[in-house]
């Protein structure tokens, strides 16, 4: 890319495509945040604009719009930018690129329709199954079809990036994969390995069942397949944030990435470790032996390593940047960082919240202590610090830098943008602190009315009333922050005739790719090892689930049905007899 030119100058068509992905993402954020506000006010009984029965429609929409649509549309945009910018070449065939975007949009629209139709009785379509769609909860088939089409779109997106890389490799034999592209490719490998699980769950079991082609399914099996995908998906949200922290944050801080090799190691560790851990979401599921849960826990603890490595590299890069800007002393360099820049500050605050949320994740991951917080409000607390801030706030902050590059327009309201990211930070701490504390005393999640007659939660310091107020205040601040973000994005999009402050160039790492062992770029090797680990971690649990409950559930065969019918007849007869005798 020529020096001083924005991405939009160098690749106008590609920039338009990425903008389209971002708008889909931002639209989902707006709708999702609105539902979030409704939930925050409803659960706490502060303002109830919906019937409590409708709560699950709202919650499903909140989950799906935010963690499927908002995050994934944004990250495919980031990945497209990262690949094009770092390989310095457009996709091989732009029609294919628009094609996968079209598939994703179609899938998202079908699923959105299935969920939102639940608000009216005039359409006989419903999908109040929450974003985890656990069977035997059943949605309209459109919901699942939409999800599958959406995921297939992301698969093709990955294929597109691999294709660009192969074309680049042909022109640049023997060269190291540029770091941003390396991050995209490894993330997509992880995504391929893991999303197979949810695809099988839907295509083989849940969709045929919702179409009434099969009469039954094995809920433990579909749940396990869901969580096989459900943990890696959190890294699908998080790794694009990591990409921005590694690639953009050091530059924004005024310096350069500390170590390219360490960054590569981190991404490979995620490829290897993020899938064989999913059972840590099922510690309380009956039908899975404790031993498998214990193995999943051990693997999970290893996953801390790449995140700690990231914390080290990022902070080292920031310190380097600050010292380049004249920062001095043990801690004083912190004041030399560009806190005025909303992109920098937003990412730095997101990183801080992420570290905090990571510690609460250790609580979730510990098998014994998980029992304390399982299915309580603690879990949404964790969700909002991690995907709801580490990813979401990083994305918003990243947009303050990326959208000017993609439009060629200057960011409107830099000062307001700073207020926006700070508001998110404060809002999220208010809301999640309340959620964590509420969870610790047993307040359940996924409930419209968590208060019970004749029972009081014993809150350490304060009362449930205070917790509720804090949650509602935090949620409202978050909503305001989200709306502010969207307004600034719209204004920036229309801010023609201006130029971004920053040129789009990314400085090279201090310790560059030449310092990293070539084996790190051997993607086939890592795929093979990852596959072996997955087989080791999952073959036994899946086999035992299937042998215990059957592929299509415990009550599919003729024998259980006969027993069931016989026992019903027997019970009715006994009841009749006892009534007569009495």
């Amino acid at each position, binding site marked *: 890319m020529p020096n001083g030119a924005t991405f939009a100058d160098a690749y106008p068509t590609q920039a338009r495509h990425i903008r389209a992905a971002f708008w889909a993402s931002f639209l989902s954020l707006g709708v999702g945040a609105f539902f979030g506000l409704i939930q925050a006010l409803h659960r706490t009984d502060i303002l109830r604009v919906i019937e409590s029965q409708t709560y699950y429609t709202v919650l499903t929409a909140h989950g799906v719009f935010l963690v499927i649509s908002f995050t994934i549309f944004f990250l495919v945009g980031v990945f497209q930018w990262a690949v094009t910018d770092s390989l310095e070449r457009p996709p091989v065939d732009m029609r294919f690129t628009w094609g996968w975007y079209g598939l994703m949009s179609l899938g998202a629209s079908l699923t959105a329709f299935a969920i939102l139709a639940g608000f009216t009785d005039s359409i006989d379509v419903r999908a109040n199954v929450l974003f985890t769609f656990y069977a035997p909860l059943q949605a309209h088939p459109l919901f699942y079809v939409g999800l599958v089409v959406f995921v297939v779109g992301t698969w093709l997106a990955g294929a597109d990036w691999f294709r660009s890389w192969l074309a680049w490799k042909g022109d640049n034999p023997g060269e190291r994969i540029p770091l941003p592209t390396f991050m995209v490719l490894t993330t997509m490998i992880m995504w391929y390995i893991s999303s197979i699980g949810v695809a099988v769950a839907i295509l083989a079991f849940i969709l045929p069942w919702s179409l009434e082609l099969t009469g039954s399914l094995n809920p433990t099996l579909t749940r396990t397949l869901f969580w096989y995908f459900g943990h890696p998906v959190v890294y699908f949200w998080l790794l694009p944030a990591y990409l921005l922290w590694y690639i953009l944050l050091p530059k924004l801080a005024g310096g350069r990435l500390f170590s390219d090799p360490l960054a590569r190691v981190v991404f490979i560790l995620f490829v290897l470790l993020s899938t064989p851990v999913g059972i840590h979401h099922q510690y309380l599921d009956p039908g899975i032996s404790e031993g498998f849960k214990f193995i999943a826990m051990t693997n999970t603890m290893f996953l801390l390593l790449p995140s700690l490595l990231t914390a080290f590299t990022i902070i080292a890069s920031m310190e380097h940047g600050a010292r380049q800007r004249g920062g001095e002393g043990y801690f004083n360099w912190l004041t030399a960082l560009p806190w005025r820049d909303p992109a920098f500050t937003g990412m730095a605050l997101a990183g801080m919240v992420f570290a905090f949320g990571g510690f609460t994740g250790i609580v979730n991951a510990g098998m014994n202590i998980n029992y304390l917080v399982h299915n309580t409000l603690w879990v949404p607390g964790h969700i909002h610090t991690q995907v709801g801030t580490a990813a979401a706030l990083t994305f918003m902050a990243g947009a303050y830098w990326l959208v000017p590059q993609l439009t060629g327009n200057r960011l409107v309201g830099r000062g307001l943008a*700073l207020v926006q990211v700070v508001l998110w930070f404060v809002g999220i701490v208010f809301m999640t602190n309340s959620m964590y504390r509420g969870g610790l005393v047993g307040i359940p999640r996924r409930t419209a009315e968590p208060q019970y007659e004749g029972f009081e939660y014993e809150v350490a310091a304060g009362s449930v009333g*205070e917790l509720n107020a804090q949650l509602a205040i935090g949620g409202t601040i978050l909503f305001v922050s989200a709306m502010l973000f969207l307004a600034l994005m719209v204004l920036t999009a229309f801010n023609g005739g201006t130029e971004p402050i920053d040129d789009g160039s990314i400085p090279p790492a201090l310790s560059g790719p030449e310092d990293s062992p070539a084996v790190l770029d051997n993607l086939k090797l890592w795929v093979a090892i990852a596959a072996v680990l997955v087989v080791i971690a999952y073959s036994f649990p899946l086999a035992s689930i299937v042998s215990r409950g059957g592929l299509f559930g415990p009550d599919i065969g003729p024998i259980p049905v006969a027993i069931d019918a016989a026992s019903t007849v027997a019970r009715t007869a006994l009841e009749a007899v006892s009534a007569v005798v009495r």
Partner: protein
Amino acid sequence: MRLRTSPAKLLVLVALCLVVLVELRTALAFVGVSLSIGATVAVGVAAIAALLLWAVRPAGSGE
């Protein structure tokens, strides 16, 4: 009026104050010290006021 720090840093510091306050109250509760809402708000107001005073105190006076 000249600030001792930039408005941006001040904004971040005020936000950090709020955040530390909320989390500190929780941490204190774990060790058996419970601050009432009133006390928490009072501490917060005092801390933020002190921060703002420090910021607007003309540079060069003192230190």
